[in-house]
């Protein structure tokens, strides 16, 4: 009682304020250490490595941007960077074009099966990633499932090798990988749009099409962008998919990072490529989210 009264009159004393700050610092300290050690330091080290030089497998601590100059001067790197960017853009874009309308249908048309339908889309996320990618090799290979099927229905006379080991295969597989993520984000956003907004728009005489473009899309657009961005970043940094189904024409940046840390043994150059991947990803996210700022908010 007395304590309450003093607090009301004077506010917390200097001593107790110091104590509370001290307690808070002690509590927060481990969390800050965690973030520093596992997030900040690794990223700083990655940057440092990309500015150092490789000399026959040992690292010379000379500070310069020689690695980046080598990279951007190299024809191969430029081709790969452009290709990786386009592949990531295409696969995230196609995944969004499939997953968002699907999420819309599931939310609006599936009634009480909505949750089940949504969960069924997400389940493949937890089937081994390697297996999902590798299975496409079994399906698309020269004597794979697809070729056998097409041959048995008489559509082609001899097995085609065109399905596997191409840029298209990589785009398709990465689209496959991205769909559940884009779906999850789109679904969550679409579910939050209250039903009465659709009804109100319809009552005002708007066609379903108009309702979608003037009401639903502005409310869910930011989420779609997040989904698209997740798909893009996933695809941009991938090396498993291109090396399993890409062949030579499907090689991406990730594959040459792997090389630098493996056979080529040039860590600083590999770090520079990784930094380029990270920076491109961040830049892309910034641009995309700048152009699709939230126009409206669900109250």
């Amino acid at each position: 009682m007395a304590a309450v009264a003093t607090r009301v009159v004077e506010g917390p004393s200097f001593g107790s304020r110091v104590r509370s700050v001290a307690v808070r610092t002690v509590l927060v300290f481990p969390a800050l250490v965690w973030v520093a050690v596992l997030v900040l330091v690794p990223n700083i080290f990655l940057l440092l490595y990309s500015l150092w030089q490789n000399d026959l497998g040992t690292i010379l601590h000379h500070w310069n941007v020689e690695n980046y100059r080598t990279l951007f001067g190299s024809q191969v790197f430029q081709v790969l960077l452009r290709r990786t960017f386009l592949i990531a853009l295409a696969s995230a874009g196609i995944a969004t074009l499939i997953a968002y309308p699907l999420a819309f249908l599931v939310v609006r048309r599936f009634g009480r099966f909505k949750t089940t339908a949504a969960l069924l889309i997400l389940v493949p996320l937890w089937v081994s990633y390697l297996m999902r990618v590798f299975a496409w090799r079994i399906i698309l290979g020269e004597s794979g499932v697809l070729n056998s099927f097409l041959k048995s229905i008489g559509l082609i006379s001899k097995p085609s090798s065109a399905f596997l080991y191409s840029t298209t295969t990589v785009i398709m597989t990465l689209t496959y990988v991205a769909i559940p993520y884009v779906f999850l984000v789109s679904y969550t956003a679409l579910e939050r749009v209250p039903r009465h907004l659709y009804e109100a728009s319809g009552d005002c005489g708007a066609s379903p099409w108009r309702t979608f473009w003037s009401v639903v899309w502005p409310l869910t657009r930011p989420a779609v962008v997040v989904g698209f961005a997740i798909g893009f970043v996933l695809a941009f940094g991938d090396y498993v998919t291109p090396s399993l189904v890409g062949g030579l024409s499907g090689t991406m940046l990730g594959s040459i990072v792997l090389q630098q840390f493996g056979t080529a043994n040039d860590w600083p150059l590999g770090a520079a490529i990784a930094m380029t991947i990270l920076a491109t990803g961040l830049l892309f996210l910034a641009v995309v989210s700048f152009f699709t700022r939230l126009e409206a908010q669900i109250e």
Partner: protein
Amino acid sequence: MSSASITARVDKSGPSLARRVAGIVIKVFVGLAVASVYLFLYAPPIVTAIFSFNSSSIQTLPFGHATLGWYRALLNDPQMQAAIYYSLKIALSAVGIAAVFGVAFALIVHRVKFPGRNVFQALLASPLVTPGMVLGISLLVVFHSVSVAPGFLTIVIGHASFVTPLVTFIVLQRLRTSDPSLEQASMDSGAGPLRTFWHVTLPGIRVPLIAACLLGFTLSMDEITVTFFLAGIQGTLPVYVWGLLRFGFTPEVNAAFTIIGGGSLLLIVIATALLVGAGIRPGRRRAQRRAELVTR
């Protein structure tokens, strides 16, 4: 207003036949499109499962005869078993670390106001969204600089770095919707912070915590892009299989994937049931009852 709509409906006497047919055609078309997306998503796992029972060792049609031989071979393959055992050990360790730190960070973010809390959350979450390759390499260069050889420890730390934020954010979700008066009641009744945590807070977040651990476990079991850079001589199952896929594939891999896939699905079903199912309420009621007991 309502009378107008009724007259309109009476006037039209239903849509014309052509319109109805068009509607059905559109519905069939959309239905087929949706079904094909599901087929697209499920074709790879189903194909793998089917081929794990195929006697032929080449991954092509036509199908040989059905066999459990690859599963038997799996049981007699010491390298594959070592990899599975190693993966399990790593997943359990990473999830253990993630559970302790994840809950602690969730409580800190939820309770303690400190400058830069949002920045902290964003940084904590970043390993979840960084490309695995970048995360793997950045950790590798740190471990290399402090001369920690790649192996069990480095993989566990790598996995804990992305499982921990997963636990934090799932638990945080629950903390934000939970009733703070339960803990205040417990404290007011003289229970210390530790007793309150053990008897009130922990039972309240138990369900999301278990679900997050199950999700984290399957993520860790499946991880390859980070693990690849942090593994020493002994690889985890995905790293070992990655080697096999490129040099010397056998359908044993299909069998291993089918088992792991089935196991993951089982864990996911449990986790989902815990998160969305009726599990939420009994847990909360129990927490309430405990709080009542403590306060008594």
